[in-house]
């Protein structure tokens, strides 16, 4: 079933692109079908008790190269969120874009491709599968964020998101390799707990990777910029999907790294910093979408903190938060998008009075905002209550740090939520609104109402979240989410949070909207990219400067180093002067011709001398009893000499003078090359490794190849794969020459025409 759903997604990507040719709406509805099916399947599985489905495709068995998928309770919960919210957002996007928006062949297909990668990521059961889908989400989200690519600032934002998340992906890969090596298995579930320095290294690397994806301080700088994307993209990527990837990763590798102190404390540091700084950011901005984006940083920090704490109750609270956050944050994004489309602005300083003109949106925003703040009777209340209980159950420094972060962040969350709702819907001259858009309102209403329904039917939510938490921490089975905790410490803390935060938010909102905060960090990230882009042409100019003599000198030096390594094997005992006196004569001729090639001043003379070297070597092959080699060498030399005659016509008759230190370098490289090759050949010749394989080859050639010319049978039969590779190389070279020649002729052809 996993394969069927996954392949349905993959097949629907081109289908969505094709349907997009008709209209954006058709493309999006086509794209929404596959996620809707996946969500329905996940819901049915969860209702049926949540069996674990697995599927695998082994490619290279011995190397553990395989795609392994596994849908356990946690993955089913994530599937429900990723696919369900995905399908709703695609329907919403149909309303957002209007019937004939541009990019209709691109957007639905990319959206579905992202959804597919996300599904693969959720189902991945080996670190390699996870990594592949992880990177796929980075790439597809880059395309989605950069949807309006005509705008330079959008391109910048998309590039920043890609650089940070893909860079984090590489760090993650390193961490996953270390983890898989020290755990002795690449399977994600049931990974043995690891310890020691390797585990700490893996933990830190994986956390950094997860923090880039889940926008944790200081890697959060890409997320506000990514709000340049169309609102459906923001609603999907930054509520239910992309940013949850890091949370999911921390959750699934958490059990293996639970005992590692570095993992726990770095995670808490990331989390607490993000809870507070994200909420502060949300208070400073006036673009409603940016407020939500910064709020996401804060909420994700809360989940990272709880997962890093790692007690059974904290894990349960983190998953409950994850579940409710996906619903309320998506709903809020969708409402803001609708406000944006219908009023033409998202600035809370310009908006106001929308509670009368957009009552449905207001109701949804109240429900979702209430869930974000943690008010009953909403799902967010249950999640936050569990989180505070989990934090209060800790002890010592851990309790102080985490409680300060969680409670402080929650107060600020209340404040920015109040400010946001007040700014958009609150009193003031009502902003004029455009026509109703039912396709936008309906998905938002469904997601907003889900918070109430979830609270009312909390036993159903428990059946989803508690088994999921139990996958990560066995003791989580003992807990459950409760509707009404009664007058306990946690509840008192909750009341205080809402009270203080509400007052602070109301005061802050009535103070009006201050000046826009300077974006901290984003410029640094962009600076790194710009510096790199500026540096790479200089590096390329240094390495690929286009001077043939310098290339040859570099290659010669490398060859010398390679040959010199062999020279130490030289064993003087086996060295003889010659097998046959003719060899000495031919060798002398070769040496003289080589010297002539080096010293002669005319180009043609040098070419002929080089040819003489080749013909001398041909003679040596003949004397040695290799007619085939000799014939080939002879023909190659002939073609080369004649080719020289053809090519030299374009050059001056004599070599240009070479002087100074460059001349010394050339002489040194040439001399070192000669010496190193001589030494290496002498070493090879004086180290016989046993009886030559000639006799076996002859027998095999006649028996299997049916030919008496051993060399030819080797080339065309026994080792024909080598020959196949070589001729393909030859053909590639020929095509390269043709292309180069074409580059040279094109400007000439133009000047001729003019």
């Amino acid at each position, binding site marked *: 079933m996993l394969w069927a759903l996954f392949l349905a997604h993959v097949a629907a990507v081109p289908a969505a692109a094709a349907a997009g040719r008709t209209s954006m709406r058709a493309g999006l509805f086509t794209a929404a079908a596959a996620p809707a099916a996946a969500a329905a399947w996940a819901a049915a599985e969860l209702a049926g008790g949540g069996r674990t489905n697995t599927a695998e495709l082994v490619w290279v068995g011995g190397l553990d190269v395989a795609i392994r998928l596994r849908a356990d309770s946690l993955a089913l919960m994530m599937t429900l969120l990723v696919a369900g919210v995905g399908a709703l957002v695609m329907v919403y996007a149909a309303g957002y874009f209007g019937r004939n928006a541009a990019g209709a062949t691109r957007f639905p297909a990319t959206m579905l491709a992202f959804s597919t990668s996300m599904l693969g990521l959720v189902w991945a059961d080996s670190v390699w599968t996870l990594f592949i889908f992880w990177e796929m989400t980075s790439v597809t989200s880059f395309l989605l964020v950069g949807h309006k690519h005509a705008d330079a600032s959008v391109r910048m934002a998309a590039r920043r998101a890609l650089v940070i998340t893909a860079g984090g992906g590489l760090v993650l890969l390193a961490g996953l390799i270390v983890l898989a090596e020290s755990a002795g298995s690449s399977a994600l579930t049931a990974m043995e707990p690891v310890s020691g320095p390797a585990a700490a290294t893996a933990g830190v690397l994986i956390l950094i990777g997860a923090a880039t994806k889940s926008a944790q301080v200081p890697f959060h700088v890409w997320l506000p910029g990514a709000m340049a994307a169309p609102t459906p993209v923001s609603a999907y990527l930054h509520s239910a999907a992309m940013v949850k990837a890091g949370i999911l990763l921390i959750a699934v590798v958490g059990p293996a790294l639970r005992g590692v102190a570095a993992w726990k404390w770095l995670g808490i540091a990331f989390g607490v910093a993000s809870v507070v700084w994200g909420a502060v950011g949300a208070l400073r901005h006036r673009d409603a979408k940016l407020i939500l984006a910064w709020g996401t940083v804060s909420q994700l920090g809360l989940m990272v903190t709880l997962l890093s704490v790692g007690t059974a109750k904290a894990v349960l609270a983190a998953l409950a938060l994850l579940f409710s956050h996906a619903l309320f944050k998506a709903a809020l994004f969708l409402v803001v998008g609708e406000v944006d489309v219908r009023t033409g602005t998202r600035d809370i300083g310009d908006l106001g009075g929308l509670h009368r003109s957009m009552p449905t949106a207001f109701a949804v925003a109240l429900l979702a905002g209430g869930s974000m703040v943690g008010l009953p009777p909403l799902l967010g209340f249950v999640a936050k209550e569990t989180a505070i209980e989990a934090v209060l159950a800790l002890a010592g420094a851990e309790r102080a740090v985490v409680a300060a972060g969680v409670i402080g962040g929650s107060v600020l969350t209340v404040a920015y939520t109040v400010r946001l709702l007040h700014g958009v819907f609150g009193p003031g001259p009502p902003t004029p609104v455009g026509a109703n858009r039912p396709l936008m309102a309906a998905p938002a209403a469904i997601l907003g109402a889900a918070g109430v329904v979830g609270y009312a039917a909390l036993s159903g939510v428990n059946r989803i979240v508690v088994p999921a938490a139990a996958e990560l921490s066995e003791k989580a089975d003992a807990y459950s989410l409760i509707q009404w905790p009664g007058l306990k410490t946690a509840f008192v803390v909750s009341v205080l949070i809402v009270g203080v935060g509400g007052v602070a938010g109301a005061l802050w909102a009535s103070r009006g909207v201050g000046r826009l905060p300077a974006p901290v960090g984003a410029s640094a990230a962009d600076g790194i990219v710009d510096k790199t882009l500026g540096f790479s042409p200089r590096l390329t100019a240094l390495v690929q400067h286009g001077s043939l003599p310098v290339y040859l000198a570099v290659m010669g030096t490398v060859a010398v180093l390679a040959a010199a390594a062999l020279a130490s094997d030289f064993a003087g005992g086996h060295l003889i002067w010659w097998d046959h006196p003719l060899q000495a004569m031919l060798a002398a001729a070769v040496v003289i011709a080589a010297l002539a090639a080096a010293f002669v001043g005319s180009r043609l003379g040098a070419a002929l001398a080089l040819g003489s070297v080749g013909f001398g070597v041909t003679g040596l092959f003949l004397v040695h009893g290799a*007619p*085939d080699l*000799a*014939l*080939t060498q002879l*023909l*190659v030399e*002939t*073609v080369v000499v*004649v*080719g020289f*005659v*053809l*090519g*030299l*016509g*374009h050059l001056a008759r004599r070599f240009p003078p070479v002087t100074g230190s460059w001349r010394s370098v050339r002489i040194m490289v040439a001399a070192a090359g000669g010496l190193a090759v001589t030494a290496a050949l002498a070493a090879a010749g004086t180290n016989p490794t046993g009886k030559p394989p000639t006799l076996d080859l002859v027998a095999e050639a006649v028996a299997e*190849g*049916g*030919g*008496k*010319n051993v*060399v*030819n*049978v080797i*080339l*065309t*039969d026994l080792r*024909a*794969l080598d*020959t*196949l590779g070589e*001729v*393909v190389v*030859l*053909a590639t*070279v*020929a*095509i390269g*020459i*043709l292309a*180069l*020649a*074409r580059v*040279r*002729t094109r400007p*000439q052809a133009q000047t*001729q025409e003019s």
Partner: protein
Amino acid sequence: MNPNQTPAIQLGIRVASPLAIVVGVYLLFAGHNFPGGGFAAGLVFGAVAILRTIAGLQRPKGTTALIACGVLMVTVVSFLPILWGDPLLDQRVVTFDLPLLGTIKTGTALVFDIGVSIIVVGLVSAIINGLSASQPTQGAGQPTQGAGQPTQGAPQ
């Protein structure tokens, strides 16, 4: 006048070319049992092409088609055995009788060898065309494609 394109040289090369082609074909077929083979044959054909270019007789044409044809032959012969379950590059030996020539023994290795020689010819003619393309055009006179006419752009 270009010293490479005197009538004596042109005539010599024109007379020698068919002989060289015969030698090349011999090398191609002899390769299985005597020195020779596709690579050597390709080099002989290539040398002929270069000589004819220098003498201003003819420049090789259809380089791309030659390369494509050679690669196609080699790959098809290599991968065809997989279709009937034999390993990659498995050879078939065929023996049959012909009038006058007697018993002929050949095999798919020959097709492979012919493909190799075609690729080599393609490479050489790509080099020729590359070198000719880069020569400075001197105003009057286009490089001629036909046989027997002196080429403007040949070496001085």
